[in-house]
């Protein structure tokens, strides 16, 4: 294949050169009048009789939108009348369609003409037909139902003997086609791949590309035809196939590494001018093709040294060839530079690429300068020194009259910001923000400023002032997480208590003075931030009377523009502050005003304010003022209401039923109700978050006062909710985030560069004197100074850290999680079952689940297996059960091949089974990284005089590794191992140690397995081939079978996510299973068995129903809904993967039987 590949493009060389294209650039100024697109009177060429011409002219002469509308409506009415007339010829119809196209392009709908466009494509000939197709593709979107009417026409035209008609049909198919009808035309399109005409083959490839985009599964089987197209003797067909390859390589670069050589060869030939001359553009050979190939190469070479190696030569050539002074060569160069910086680095190429970027940036041509900045922005993270080289140019660009250049420069500076230059860079950004009028830019830049400020702020004053600007400028447009993060940061504080106080005090000072100024000018979001901060921290300023703050806040309530949301924040702040005679008086007055407000939230706040300001003891309990930020202890069982409940019950009140139970009673008739997932969810109430001091901006608990808490079900009634915690009462984000972050602080001791002012000054003076930073001979003094402050810190970076990311600078303010390198989603995605009452168990669970399993004490693992279904516990002795379960799966035809899925290594004591000494000695050959994990029993695969093969598999959290041991007893050589499977994707792990087994050794091969097609049992078949010492080749076959359950991992989803997923999945199966009733609650018992044996994750159990979720390795989810009904467990499984539900139900059955 590769040979054909290489030879195919070579044939272009022999092709007679097509006619020389006119390289001479024409003056194109005449074009607009030629196209009659000009408003000048020069449009004489346009036929005066052309109705479109008249229309265009008419429109052009109009001055008001209103007149235009009138004219177009008249035109549309006339078109409408004519299209429906039976006397209209196809020729006239074509003309009418063009006018309709024009009207639509001005924004006036002409939907009446859609059906006529389809008719025209059907009945017209030549250009009429083409215009029909054109109109269809312009009028309809891909999901339009009328498109179905086109299928027959396309089908007919594809079979036409007239090539032009075939061409048209293929063109429209590659633009739009109803997904479901692809099978109807696919064979015809495939057939066209062998057509003698290049244009037909090319368009067929483009049609297949379209199919690949809209329905990749439909063209799965013709991947080899794509390869054929890639080797087509015509360069146009080859070029067309690249679109498919870019797409496929993007999705799976690993799968196409073998084509690298082919792409390199093609690029070499193109660069070397082997294509016919008519592919040239201004004497440059097929520039857009070159660009496309370079993109493919960078995708293939990324993070892959050996693949990158293959392309160095051609990249070098491309960098050298592009010397010609033309835009298009620069465009190629730009792509080339990007590629060089994307793939595995090679120093001399990097040097050339850097020089190239330098030429761009220094160019007088503004477009090139822009491209240079863009390239610099792209590479500067890997190579900050490059920015240093061009610092003076960057400074100039910062003052460039063109805002676009300025904006791109800021983007570049954003990437090189560090603790030393942050002040200058943020200053430049704010400067730009003040002149920018574009909302999108403002939102983007404000976010960046906030990020930089949190990351690198040198001191409190600067931080608060910068954030003030962010809030004022960003206003109500900015991303809501900016104020959230800011408040979180302020409340959590950082290293030193004293620093925290200073920061908060400074914020209070700053806000008080802002409120004394013109608060009416501040955006609502900023006012909310101010209110919260003053409410929490104004007590830190002892000389500040609470009453003064209350009055300032009161002013906000009286302003017309203050939103009711902001008023809520103000009232909350007031509640916290109402202390002492004067302030209570103000508070009472305010609460009087709002206690009768129409806004219920405001009314509630006013109530709170009124009550709490009067009862200082209660206020102190509800709103304790402590800086320690102890995580709130929550009595999730609401036991303090016990008395109230029993009293009410005694008085004859009906016992509380949680909503789902009520629902259940209503839906009793139905066997399975799907609705509850959505409906039984607690509504997180935004009201009453007053007690939640820690996470001010998040929704928080529903009040006990409301009495409607589902939590009561914990207490009374049937308590089957052992498996989940308090998450349903607590705003999931609020409470959890709090706990997580507290722990985070405890764990991550970032060496924070807290600097005293004097140190700061020292540093400042030292960097302005650093001599290496001002290498440019004689630029203006101020620019030089700016440069030295901007690029400070870059020079000290390690010379070239191309491979890894530059070291993270310790951040002073540890606001956003992403800054600290931990996944930003940890908070949200932590399984809800991990949030629980603050018992000891819970504290353990709040740690990373994997931490627990790494130190397996018996009691602990019991707890985890009981309480956190989402945790994989390979180390807690589940092996015997597993073994029991799968022991029955032993391949009966070959009793020697014992199939054991048990995770044997879980037990620290090794196997002491005398029958299997080999196992013992082989397990010592297990790769070190797998040793800690449990592995299945090592089973012999095949044996002869020369060698023994054994295998086991290791269940990792995110993968399944098959380990094959080859041990030999006599001298053999050239051992080759080849594995394949119908149901599995087998890939050799690149880091498999290759051990020399030629004499009495053990070689260990590792393969990663993922499921391609689910089946109850999956099998890997393999062939080992080798040569005896006398040269005789030998082969041995073997197979290894393992149950699908080895690939199943729990899936942690929330009930909401489960609900949406459930509705999305199309493959399902239902069955009744036996319940396990060993005295205790049968549902819980059964689910526990499924959880333990099959690694299903329990999402939630409500009453007699439970929902579980799992995934087949690599994101193939399967959801389970089960419900106790008539003594059995009615199970319903759903998944997007065909066959998965069926296979899983089988294993569920087995799991419950064996027990």
């Amino acid at each position: 294949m590769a040979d054909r590949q290489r030879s195919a493009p070579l044939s272009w060389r022999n092709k007679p050169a097509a006619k020389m294209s006119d390289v001479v650039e024409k003056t194109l100024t005449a074009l607009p009048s030629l196209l009659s697109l000009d408003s000048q009177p020069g449009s004489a060429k346009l036929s005066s009789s052309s109705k479109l011409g008249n229309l265009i002219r008419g429109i052009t002469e109009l001055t008001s939108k209103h007149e235009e509308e009138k004219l177009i409506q008249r035109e549309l009415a006339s078109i409408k009348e004519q299209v429906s007339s039976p006397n209209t010829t196809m020729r006239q119809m074509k003309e009418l369609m063009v006018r309709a196209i024009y009207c639509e392009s001005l924004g006036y709908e002409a939907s009446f003409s859609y059906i006529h466009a389809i008719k025209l494509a059907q009945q017209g000939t030549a250009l009429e037909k083409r215009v029909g197709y054109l109109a269809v593709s312009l009028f309809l979107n891909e999901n339009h139902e009328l498109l179905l009417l086109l299928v027959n026409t396309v089908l007919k035209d594809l079979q036409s003997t007239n090539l032009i008609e075939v061409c048209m049909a293929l063109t429209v198919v590659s633009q739009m086609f109803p997904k479901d009808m692809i099978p109807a035309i696919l064979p015809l399109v495939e057939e066209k791949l062998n057509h003698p005409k290049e244009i037909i083959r090319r368009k067929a490839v483009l049609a297949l590309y379209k199919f690949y985009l809209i329905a990749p599964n439909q063209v799965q089987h013709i991947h080899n035809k794509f390869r054929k197209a890639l080797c087509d003797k015509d360069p146009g067909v080859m070029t067309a196939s690249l679109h498919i390859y870019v797409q496929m390589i993007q999705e799976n670069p690993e799968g196409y590494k073998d084509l690298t050589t082919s792409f390199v060869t093609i690029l070499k030939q193109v660069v070397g001018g082997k294509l016919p001359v008519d592919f040239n553009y201004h004497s440059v050979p097929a520039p857009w093709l070159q660009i496309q190939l370079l993109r493919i190469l960078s995708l293939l070479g990324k993070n892959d040294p050996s693949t990158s190696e293959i392309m160095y030569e051609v990249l070098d050539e491309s960098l050298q060839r592009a010397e010609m002074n033309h835009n298009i060569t620069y465009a190629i160069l730009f792509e080339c530079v990007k590629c060089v910086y994307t793939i595995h680095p090679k120093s001399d190429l990097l040097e050339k690429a850097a020089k190239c970027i330098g030429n761009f940036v220094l160019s007088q041509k503004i477009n090139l300068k822009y491209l240079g900045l863009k390239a610099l922005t792209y590479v500067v993270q890997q190579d900050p020194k490059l920015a240093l080289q061009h610092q003076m140019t960057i400074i100039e660009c910062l003052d460039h009259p063109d805002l676009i250049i300025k904006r791109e420069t800021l983007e570049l500076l954003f990437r090189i910001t560090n603790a030393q230059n942050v002040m200058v860079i943020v200053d430049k950004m704010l400067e730009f923000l003040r002149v920018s009028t574009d909302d999108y830019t403002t939102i983007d830049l404000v976010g960046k400023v906030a990020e930089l400020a949190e990351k690198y702020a040198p001191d409190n004053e600067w931080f608060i002032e910068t954030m003030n600007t962010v809030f004022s400028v960003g206003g109500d447009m900015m991303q809501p997480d900016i104020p959230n993060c800011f408040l979180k940061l302020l409340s959590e504080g950082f290293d030193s208590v004293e620093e925290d106080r200073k920061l908060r005090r400074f914020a209070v000072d700053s806000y008080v003075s802002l409120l004394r100024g013109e608060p009416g000018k501040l955006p609502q979001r900023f006012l909310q931030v101010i209110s919260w901060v003053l409410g929490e921290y104004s007590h830190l300023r002892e000389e500040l009377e609470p009453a003064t703050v209350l009055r300032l806040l009161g002013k906000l309530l009286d302003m017309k523009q203050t939103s009711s949301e902001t008023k809520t924040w103000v009232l909350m702040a007031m509640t916290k502050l109402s202390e002492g005679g004067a302030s209570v008086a103000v508070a009472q007055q305010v609460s009087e005003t709002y206690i009768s407000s129409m806004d219920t939230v405001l009314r509630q706040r006013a109530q709170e304010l009124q009550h709490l300001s009067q009862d200082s003891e209660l206020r102190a309990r509800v709103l304790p003022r402590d800086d320690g930020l102890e995580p709130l202890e929550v009595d999730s069982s609401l036991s303090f209401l016990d008395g109230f409940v029993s009293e009410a019950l005694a008085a004859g009140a009906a016992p509380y039923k949680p909503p789902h139970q009520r629902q259940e009673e209503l839906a009793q008739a139905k066997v399975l109700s799907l609705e509850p997932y959505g409906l039984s969810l607690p509504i997180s109430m935004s009201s009453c978050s007053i007690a939640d001091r820690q996470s001010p901006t998040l929704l928080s608990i529903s009040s006990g006062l409301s009495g409607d808490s589902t939590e009561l079900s914990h207490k009374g009634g049937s308590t089957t909710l052992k498996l989940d915690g308090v998450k349903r009462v607590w705003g999931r984000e609020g409470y959890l985030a709090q706990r997580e972050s507290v722990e985070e602080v405890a764990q991550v001791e970032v060496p924070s560069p807290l600097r005293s002012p004097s140190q700061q000054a020292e540093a400042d003076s030292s960097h302005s004197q650093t001599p290496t930073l001002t290498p440019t001979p004689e630029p203006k003094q101020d620019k030089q100074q700016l440069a030295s402050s901007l690029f400070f810190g870059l020079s000290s970076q390690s010379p070239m850290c191309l491979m890894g990311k530059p070291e993270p600078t310790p951040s002073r303010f540890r606001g956003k999680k992403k800054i600290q390198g931990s996944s930003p989603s940890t908070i949200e995605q932590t399984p809800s079952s991990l949030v629980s009452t603050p018992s000891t168990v819970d504290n353990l669970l709040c740690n990373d689940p994997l931490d627990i399993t790494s130190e397996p004490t018996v009691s602990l693992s019991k707890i985890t297996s009981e309480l956190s279904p989402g945790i994989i516990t390979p180390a807690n002795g589940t092996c015997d059960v597993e073994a029991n379960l799968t022991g029955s799966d032993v391949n009966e035809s070959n009793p020697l091949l014992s199939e054991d899925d048990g995770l044997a290594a879980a037990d620290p004591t090794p196997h002491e089974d005398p029958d299997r000494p080999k196992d013992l000695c082989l397990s010592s050959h297990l790769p070190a990284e797998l040793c800690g994990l449990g592995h299945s029993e090592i089973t012999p695969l095949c044996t002869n005089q020369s060698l023994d093969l054994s295998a086991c598999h290791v269940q990792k959290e995110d993968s399944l590794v098959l380990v094959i041991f080859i041990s030999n007893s006599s001298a053999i050589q050239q051992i080759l191992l080849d594995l394949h499977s119908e149901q599995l994707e087998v890939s050799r792990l690149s880091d498999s140690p290759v051990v020399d087994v030629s004499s009495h050794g053990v070689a260990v091969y590792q393969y990663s397995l993922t499921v391609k097609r689910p089946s109850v049992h999956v099998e890997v078949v393999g062939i080992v081939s080798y040569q005896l010492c006398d040269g005789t080749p030998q082969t041995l076959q073997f197979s290894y079978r393992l149950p699908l359950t080895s690939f199943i991992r729990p899936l942690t989803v929330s009930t909401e996510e489960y609900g949406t997923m459930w509705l999305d999945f199309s493959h399902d199966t239902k069955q009744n299973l036996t319940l396990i009733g060993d005295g205790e609650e049968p549902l819980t018992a059964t689910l526990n068995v499924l959880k333990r044996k099959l690694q299903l994750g329990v999402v939630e159990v409500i009453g007699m129903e439970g929902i579980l979720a799992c995934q087949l390795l690599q994101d193939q989810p399967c959801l389970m809904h089960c419900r106790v009904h008539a003594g059995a467990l009615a199970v319903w499984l759903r998944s997007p993967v065909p066959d998965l539900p069926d296979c899983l139900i089988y294993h569920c059955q087995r799991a419950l039987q064996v027990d």
Partner: protein
Amino acid sequence: MIKFVLMVNRQGQTRLSRYYQPVELSRRAALEADVVRCCLSRRKEQCSFVEYKDFKLVYRQYAALYIVVAVTDAENELSVFELVHNFVEVLDKYFSRIMFNLDRVHVILDEMIQNGHIVETNKSRILAPLTALDKMADS
């Protein structure tokens, strides 16, 4: 990736538009007006690429005619800038003998760009289907 191609006159009136990503008809007029405003307000010596929301505009002026191409950030702006010129050269080559036709310009554009990707840049190949149609009509 190309999002749309626009041809407008100096007054900002749309002469031709082709979208490669669905945009509702009702939103197009406002979007086009905004896009055109962005480009037309710029001076000759300014950069031909404009950042617009989360994508970029590449524009080129030919006397009173502006051609604007919207591209995603990952696209190579300069190559699109030259693509516009290639397009204009193709139009020039073809229309030197035939009068302007909205439909024909569309047909040419369809040969060059599909689904937001550049599919053909060879001038003679771009024009091949259209010239074949013309021949059919002549005979």
